[in-house]
């Protein structure tokens, strides 16, 4: 597998949300608008790249029996860094994403890539894998967020194009499940053609 394939596999073929269905908690919770979805995706992508790189560097030094706790410490450190940086430089976005940033620690896609990919591959491929996966995650969250925002609030990227209310259920939790379900079904249908 060359590096280009390694990078692009995160977008459709092994997309964390659409194919692996990992990391659904933040997906369902933060995609109430396109901006929130993208913000969450980018934060997760940053953590993925960082943790994948460091895990790949240390993979041989970490004894097998303590690899999971070690990975968790590495991931948690990166998440805290993102948390502090966002609080300092993008307070508005931090406000809306709130508690979901610390929750990136338990996002299974991050630990999943560390365990399944980064611990067995070179530093460069791991970083590219993290970037591809992270951007694929961002893309899925952005599309889902835009879809829910259009139907639910009648706006996209905070630009209103209809007055009055949208279909409220799409902003609420049930709408997240409905939208994600149809999104996954559609992508699988197209992919299997």
């Amino acid at each position, binding site marked *: 597998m060359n590096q280009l394939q390694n990078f692009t596999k995160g977008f459709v073929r092994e997309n964390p949300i659409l194919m692996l269905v990992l990391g659904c908690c933040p997906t369902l919770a933060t995609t109430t608008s396109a901006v929130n979805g993208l913000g969450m995706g980018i934060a997760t992508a940053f953590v993925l790249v960082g943790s994948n790189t460091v895990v790949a560097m240390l993979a041989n030094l970490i*004894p097998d029996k303590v690899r999971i706790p070690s990975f968790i410490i590495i991931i948690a450190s990166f998440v805290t860094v993102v948390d502090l940086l966002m*609080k300092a*430089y993008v307070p508005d976005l931090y406000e809306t994403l709130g508690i979901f940033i610390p929750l990136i620690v338990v996002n299974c896609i991050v630990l999943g890539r560390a365990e399944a990919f980064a611990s067995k591959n070179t530093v460069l491929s791991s970083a590219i894998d993290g970037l591809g996966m992270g951007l694929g995650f961002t893309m899925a969250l952005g599309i889902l967020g835009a879809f829910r925002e259009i139907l639910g609030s009648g706006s996209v990227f905070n630009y209103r194009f209809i007055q009055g209310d949208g279909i*409220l259920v799409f902003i609420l939790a049930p709408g997240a499940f409905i939208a994600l379900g149809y999104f996954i079904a559609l992508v699988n249908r197209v992919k299997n053609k």
Partner: protein
Amino acid sequence: MAKTESTFKNMVISLTLISLVASACLGFVYEMTREPIELANLNKKLSAIRQVVPEFTNNPNDEMYMLPTGDGDSLEIYPAKSGNEIVGYAVNTNTSTGFSGNISLMAGFKPDGTIINITVLEQKETPGLGTKMAEPAFKDQFKDKNPGNFILKVKNDGGPVDAITAATISSRAFCHAVQRAYNALQKGGEK
């Protein structure tokens, strides 16, 4: 390089080292971001104050004082002065009677108690329903009203306030928070 064996010694050493390095990095980032975070919080507060009171020349944050609300709590009052004359008070008020979590508002009053403007600092109400409290359609009905003769109650409770459709609890909580701000300001007197 060969894989490190999972002996007790190796495990202790590697975990200790990883934790040490991680905490050093975190300490560094924390120090680096501490000032910008404080600045961001202060700016947020000042811009909220600016939205709810007329133009001022002092620094309301430095002249902040607390006044009791009469129900065992006290609120932060930010006096806005133009020269030496007080042009308004911004009150950081809150309530826990919302639909979910705390609602925190910045309410601006003229010295006689008339509401100038209100802005929502923090709320976790239902998206698309209770969150509409931050929109002008709802909160602008409080503008230029004096809670002394304008009862802060929704129509369901016999008051004049138009509640948000399907979010009566949130609307009620909003009124309650404003009422608390008014109580604090009036009971605290004119300082």
